[in-house]
């Protein structure tokens, strides 16, 4: 099975020094992000105590929640050694679909709009998945194409029209602004989604297939895993999740036009990779990706407080992404010999 550092905790059962090493390194990654978070928050808070004020933290958590939810789907796709560049466009078009629904049916039952968002996202995810698996073409090219195709459809549909906050009922925008015991609803939704996804990715056989495919697609096929069906499922899930995220996005930002969510794909991929999901597939966790999203959003907010122009946030996200993949490469170069020793002594 997978011998990559980050998934070593699940695939290595036993004893030995190398196991302890792998375990420590795995924990190190998620602990490392938490540590980085603590440092960023502390330094910024010393500079300006308003940074840890209630409203500031709530805003931070809500913004990170959207990216974290998107990161769940992207994590699944990247684990299968694919990539989905179209999620920003899917988020945009499903947010617009939800907005238009409210314009035409102001009294629609709120859960319905989430179903609409999900359905729109699922439809595009299915298209991505079908093209990738049926024609056996690289997902990079397919989703680069659908990134612009979906955005174009959105533009054609919306034209210059914008669904404003006045069209959205308070019951809906409350989801974006409301809190329970000081924690925003969006934060709770993201935490719940990450918890469910974490459990599913550890326990379900289908989810373990994702890891197997990403570790070695040929071996997975020989092992009897229906590779095409699983990859298709990964894209469908990613689309559906981006669709639901679109509904949440609208509840947070309160208005939507044809460019909603533009460029989100790069933020999400940065979060996922910083969170320890290997870009070569086969390893990583949803929890790590969500922590990565939280870290990137915290840095964004910290920049504003520290009076660094927020224009630099995208440069920092890119630099962190590169640092993360470089770090992973160096780490796996270190750990590979240790794991090899383990296998040879056992077998």
């Amino acid at each position, binding site marked *: 099975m997978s011998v990559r550092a980050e998934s070593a905790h699940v695939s290595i059962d036993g004893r030995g020094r190398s196991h302890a090493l792998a375990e420590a390194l795995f924990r190190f990654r998620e602990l490392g992000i938490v540590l980085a978070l603590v440092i960023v928050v502390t330094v910024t808070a010393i500079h300006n105590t308003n940074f840890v004020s209630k409203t500031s933290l709530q805003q931070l958590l809500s913004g990170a929640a959207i990216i974290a939810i998107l990161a769940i789907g992207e994590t699944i796709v990247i684990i299968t050694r694919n990539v989905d560049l179209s999620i920003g466009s899917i988020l945009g078009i499903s947010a617009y679909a939800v907005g238009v629904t409210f314009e035409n049916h102001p009294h629609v039952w709120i859960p319905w709009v989430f179903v609409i968002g999900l359905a729109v996202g699922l439809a595009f995810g299915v298209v991505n998945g079908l093209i990738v698996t049926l024609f056996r073409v690289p997902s990079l090219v397919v989703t680069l*194409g659908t990134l612009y195709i979906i955005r174009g459809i959105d533009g054609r549909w919306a034209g210059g029209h914008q669904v404003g906050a006045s069209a959205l009922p308070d019951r809906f925008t409350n989801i974006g602004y409301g809190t329970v015991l000081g924690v925003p609803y969006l934060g709770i939704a993201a935490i719940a989604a990450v918890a469910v996804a974490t459990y599913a990715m550890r326990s379900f056989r289908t989810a373990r297939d994702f890891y197997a495919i990403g570790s070695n697609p040929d071996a997975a096929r020989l092992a009897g895993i229906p590779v095409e069906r699983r990859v298709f499922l990964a894209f469908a899930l990613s689309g559906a999740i981006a669709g639901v995220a679109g509904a949440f996005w609208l509840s947070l930002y309160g208005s939507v036009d044809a460019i909603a969510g533009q460029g989100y794909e790069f933020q999400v991929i940065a979060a996922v990779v910083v969170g320890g999901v290997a870009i070569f597939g086969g390893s990583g966790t949803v929890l790590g990706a969500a922590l990565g999203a939280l870290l990137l959003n915290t840095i964004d907010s910290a920049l504003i407080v520290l009076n660094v*122009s927020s224009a630099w946030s995208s440069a920092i996200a*890119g630099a962190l992404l590169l640092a993360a993949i470089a770090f992973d490469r160096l780490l796996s170069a270190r750990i590979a010999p240790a794991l090899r020793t383990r296998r040879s002594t056992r077998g």
Partner: protein
Amino acid sequence: MADRLRPLLRWEAGLILLLIGTIVYGNNASQYFLTSGNVFFILLNVGEVAIMALPLTLIVVTGEIDLSVGAILGLSGVVMGELFMHGHGLWWSMAGALAVGAVAGAFNGLLITRLGLPSLAVTIGTLTLYRGIAQGILPTATIQVSKPPYSDIGVIPIRGTQIPWSFAFFAVLAVIFGVVLHATPLGRRIFAIGAGQEAARFAGIRVRRVKFWLYVLSGLLSGFCGILFTLRFSSARYDSGIGLELFVVTIVLLGGVSIFGGRGTIIGVVLAVLVLGCLQTAMTQALISPQEQNIVIGALLILSVVVPNLPGIYGRARLRWRSIMARRHASEAAEA
């Protein structure tokens, strides 16, 4: 040999048909489509993406990808604008833009060849990084860059013709790239790397060195396109050339270069440049908005990787159908 060339010839024949179809469509969209003034605009619009497609062709032939070309264009344009604004001459500003492009390309190359990182992840990262640096330097403002007569090369044709300077540069570069790729040892090495990296290494080809310099070249020419882009609009902005990677990648793959590496021709890429240039201008003259044009370009991108795979799909489907039929016959025989 003739057998091996046949699929390529067919692909390029298809491109010529597509080009003719696009011209017919353009002619229907506007009666001025084939006038000399319009041809100037067709070539002007496609100049920068055409130049950036050439080094990307070589990179894709080696089996790698570079998504950061549009971001390098933007960054080097911003650097050029800043230098110009701070009183350095136009020539120094252009040199600065070229240097930034080369350094950005070298950084890509170092990460990919020295650390062995996947080019897809690296160039998604540097796409965000370079565009982010450009945004950090020049968040919202626009810098005017204009110093006639030199800066006119962005907007006027070569004297006595209707050919814009950017396209003339592309034509010269295309000949050089074509010769290098198809008629020199270096070109054979590039194909060999794409066909099988390990085998190429054992054959004594310095895989990492070739790839590194291809990325430097890609960065350098993207910086050059940053200059052309800045001169064409007489201004530098951080978001210049945002999303151009779609067009550049589409040109390369539509040109018949295999995304898996090892196959492709410069002539195919030149034809794809013409198809895309005509298509873009024709759609603009048919009053199709840029966003809707992206639907067509995106579909073209997906089709150019799907179409070469169709025979394989047909083969698999036929195999499956046969096994189903065989099973049915077997069960019928068993029942009888």
